[in-house]
Every structure is written in C-alpha cells, then in structure tokens.
C-alpha cells in the first residue's frame, strides 16, 4: 500500500516539530527517514501511525485520507524503539494480539502466530515471556507482531538502537529480506547513516522539521542537495568558495576547474576516499601540500587528517594492503590531490 504525506505541519507550543513535510512511499518500497535526534522524524512517524494529529496537511494510505483516523483504523504495523512488547503476555500472546483485536478465529490465530514466529526464526519460543528473551529475540517478536496481521504499511522506529553492532547487522539484513519477501511498504526511522545506506530503497534526510533530500542511497551519498545532507551522510570535506570564470579557488590547492556551471558562491564536497596522497597525488589536476596530523587505522583502510599549507584541514581515506607500508607517518609532509570529476558542487544560498 502506498503512503503519501502532504504538507504536514505540527507545532508543540512555539516549537515547530514538522514544518511542512511532503513524502511519498511507493508500494513495496523501503524508505528510510534519516536525521539527527530532534529533527522531527519520530513526530512524522507518529503522525503516520495516528498517534499525532497534524496541525496542517494530510496523510493518505492506499489513496485514502487517514489524517484523522485513530491508529487502529490505519492498517499499520509498528515496531517501537524499545519494542513495546507486553511484558505480562507470552510471546505467542503478544503476536496474537493484533489478530485477536481483529476478531480472527482461534485456530487461524494459532496458525498465523506460528507462521509469524517461524518467519522470524523463533519457533518454539511462544510460551516464553518477553523478559526471558535476549534483546535481538525481543526485536524479532516485535517484528512478528507488527507483520502478523498483514498490514499495508510497516513502521520501524529506530528498532536496532539498543542492540550491539554485530546483532544489529544480522538483523538489518533479516528485516530487509523479510520486507522484500512480504513486499511490505516500509517506513524506517534511524539516525544511523550507515544503517540507512545499507537498508533503504530510498532515503529521506530530515533536519529541523523539514525533508532536505529524498533519493536512492547512492545518489544521496554522491550528490547531496544541501550542505547538511553532505555533512550528515558519510564523512566529508566541505570547502566553501566562489565560482568565477569556470573555476573555484580554495586555499592550499591549485584552482579547481568546474566548467559549465553558473558563477556564484558554492560549497565543494570531497569525500575522503576521493583524495589522493603522496605519489598518487602527483598527477592529480588539483594539488597542494599538507602535513599529516593524525592517522587512524581502520583495518581495510587508514584515515588521515592532513593540515594543508595555507589551507583547510582535510580528511583522507586510503585503502590498505598488507603488502604495502602505510602511506605516511604523523608529522610528515606530503602531496594531496584530487580530480575535479570527484568534486560535488552544492550551490550556496
């Protein structure tokens, strides 16, 4: 079922939590709302779920206006941040709850609960109480409960926040597989950009109650529409300058030729992996010299902070191979360069 959010405004006193949000999620699509805490993403989710009534705007589910409909009338399955499992009910009772509320017959309930538990690989856990399960297992129960009644839309509110990294990665893939199998339209909320990149069909980046950009992960990552998106999604070097005569001058580097763009103030985004160092930089069209301030080993790569001569501090990441020595030592001077094709230009207001 497709979801359409149109012009949603929500104020709490004189704080505007949502300042006019438009968003469309296609049938079967996995859309992630990514934003820092306080950006309004939870309020948006609650509005879609029906726990908040917006001051302005409308919510359409499957083409039907549900703006004022109570949560139970919306056909939406939701997984809460802390799972919100009913602690006094067994796992089976928890999963059966939405079916009971819909008046499903008892044998049918039993069959579907079993099926849902199998789907999340928890067959045989039905008689346990939530507190007897691990965090990951609880998470999966919450998921089973949210999908058992075949909702048209699945809402996931930072469901992996409380889990350790390894468990989180496993579950992320599992949820994604499940979502694909059930072809469930899914709205997923997180502040973890990595998670957003891994899981989503599309990402909507939110800041201060507004959506800054919507697009597939690769596009949002490579071509952020605003400085905020560039900064929030992945690591970046953001360099302010003015485009004039087809080039931008930045301290510490030779001018960056950017032909065919209108003149004016711009911000240049350079991802750390686009920077070349030492010998690799010699042939780069844009070059400068810098001194290594810090090197951090990340296993497959090494991250360096480089202070450019008469210029900004740059973040670089270069792949490591066991056979090669590390590219530089702290305090060492080296050449830093990049190709203009690797630069993404963000116009500045």
């Amino acid at each position, binding site marked *: 079922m497709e979801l359409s959010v149109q012009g949603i405004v929500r104020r709490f006193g004189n704080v505007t939590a949502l300042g006019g949000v438009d968003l469309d999620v296609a049938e079967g699509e996995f859309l992630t709302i990514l934003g820092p805490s306080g950006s309004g993403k939870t309020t948006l989710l609650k509005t879609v779920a029906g726990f908040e009534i917006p001051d302005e705007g409308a919510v359409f589910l499957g083409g039907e206006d549900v703006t004022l409909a109570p*949560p139970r009338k919306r056909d939406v399955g939701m997984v809460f941040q*802390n799972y919100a499992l009913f602690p*006094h009910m067994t796992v089976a*009772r928890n999963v059966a*709850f939405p079916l009971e509320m819909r008046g499903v017959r008892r044998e049918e309930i039993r069959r579907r609960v079993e099926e849902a538990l199998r789907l999340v690989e928890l067959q045989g856990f039905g008689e346990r109480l939530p507190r007897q399960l691990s965090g990951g297992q609880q998470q999966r129960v919450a998921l089973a409960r949210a999908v058992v009644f075949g909702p048209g839309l699945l809402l996931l509110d930072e469901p992996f926040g409380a889990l350790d990294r390894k468990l989180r990665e496993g579950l992320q893939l599992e949820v994604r597989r499940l979502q694909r199998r059930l072809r469930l339209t899914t709205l997923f909320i997180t502040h973890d950009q990595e998670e957003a990149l891994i899981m989503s069909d599309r990402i909507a980046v939110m800041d201060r109650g507004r959506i800054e950009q919507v697009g597939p992960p690769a596009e949002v990552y490579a071509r952020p529409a605003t400085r905020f998106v560039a900064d929030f999604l992945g690591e970046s070097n953001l360099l302010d300058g003015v485009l004039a005569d087809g080039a931008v001058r930045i301290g510490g580097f030779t001018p960056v030729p950017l032909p065919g763009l209108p003149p004016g103030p711009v911000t240049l985004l350079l991802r750390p992996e686009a920077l070349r160092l030492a010998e690799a930089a010699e042939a780069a069209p844009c070059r400068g010299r810098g001194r290594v301030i810090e090197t951090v080993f990340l296993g497959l790569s090494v991250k360096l902070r480089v202070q450019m001569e008469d210029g900004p501090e740059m973040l670089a990441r270069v792949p490591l191979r066991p056979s090669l020595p590390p590219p530089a030592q702290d305090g060492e001077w080296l050449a830093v360069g990049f190709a203009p094709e690797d630069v993404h230009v963000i116009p500045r207001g």
Partner: protein
Amino acid sequence: MSSPGASRRLAGRRRELALLAFATPALLLLGVVFAWPVLRLLSLSVEGGSLEHFEKAALDGLYVSVLGDSLKIAAAVTAICLVLAYPVAFWLSRAGRIGAALGLFALLLPFWTSVLVRTYAWLVLLGRNGVVNRALRDWGLIEAPLPLLHNMAGVLIGMVQVLLPYMVLPIYAALLRVDPDLSRAAEGLGAPPWRAFLRVTFPLSLTGVSAGCALVFVLSLGFFITPALLGGGRVVMISMLIEQQVREFLDWPFAAALSAVLLLVTLAIYGLIGRITRGGRLEAA
C-alpha cells in the same frame, strides 16, 4: 573453605551481609517498637496456657458477627476507594509534571489535618441541616433531608475520604512505571483505547492495585474514630470492641485474643489479595 568455590561463595555472602547491615537500624527499630509489643500482646491472649479467650471470641456470635461486619465494611471501603482512586491515579500519571505536582498536592492536603478534624468536618457537611442537604434543598432536588450521617453511608463517606490517598498513591506509582508506548502499541495493533487499557495498562498496574487494596483494607479494619462519630452508634467495628476491652474493662487477655484473630484474618486476606493479583498479572496463553 580453601577451595576457590567456597571463598567465592563467602565473598558473595559477605556482600549480602553488608547490604543487610544497612537495613539493620530499621529492622531493629521495627523489632523493638513493633514485633516485640505484638508478640507480648499475643502472648497475653494465651495467658496461663488457656484458650478460653479465643473460645469466647469464636463461640460468642457477637464477636464473630462484628468481625464479619468489619470485614464487609473494609471490603466496601476498599472497593469504593479503588473505583474512585483509579481514574485519579491514571489522570495523575498522564498529567505531566506540573499537573501531577498540583494533583498530588491536592491529594495530600488532607494529611495536614487530623482524622478527627476531618471527621467533624463531615458532620458539618453531611448533617440534616448540613451544607450538602441545604444545597440540595435550595436547588429543589429533595424535599426532606437525605440521611447521609449517623448511618453506614456516613461511615463509608468518611472512611473513603481519609483512605483515598492510600489507594491513589500506589496505583499512581505503578502506572508511572507502565511505558506509555505499550498502550500506544496496543492501539496501533488494532485495539480501541478501552481494550488497550483493559488488556495492557490495567493488568500492568495490578501491583499498585493490590498494594493499595491491601493498605486500605488493613487500615480500614483498624478504624474506630470515624465509624464511631459518623455511624451514629449503629456501625460497630471490631477495633471498637478491642479498644473497649482495653480501655474500659481492662480485659487485656481478651482484647489480645480479639487482636490475634483480627491479625490472622488480616494476614489471610492480605495473602489472598497478593495471590489474586499475581495470578491476574500474567495472562495464560
């Protein structure tokens, strides 16, 4: 002793003892000012190794029927308190910080005045020519004054007013511990608000309900000023008879026997309440 397992157990034991040490002053105080006098009192009831006082308490229909009445009154007060307190506690738990502070203040305000004063205040309010009856008459709602005082109604009103906070506070505390996301989840999963409440919020607040019920019930059984003043003499509680035996007839052994019976009945009911609510809190599959 020298095995690593034993020394580890010993370390654990030591930690428990350290924790116990913190509770020791309170335990000692309870022991001295509560447990010891109670035991002394109970031992009085079997003075001389005879059970005659218990025999009298059990065989004389008077004491049995008064005890029965007391239990019924306590149960009624508990039930009324529960019905009145739950919505208040629920509202308080959802009222936000300022609302809750004001609400709790209003709730606890009566504690600043003595039970005796409050009981007299009810005399003024509920009398034949009291505030309530006069208002009802002035509005033309009644012709003759309602008998609100000097009967069971007066006793129940007075006791409920005094005991209400003891019911509200534990339920409020229990409701505060119930994650509001749970009822939200229930509603999101298809439950109308009242079903979400009945299936989720209410069962999870049962610890508070049972604590409140036990507290109010036990306190009710000990009441004698309020029933004596507001009951017009027609309502007799077992505690009134015990007080009479102690103060007026100095028959301490018999008073002790009555107290022992009351204590036993109270403990039994206390256990029962606990068992019922423990059962209710977990839903069978």
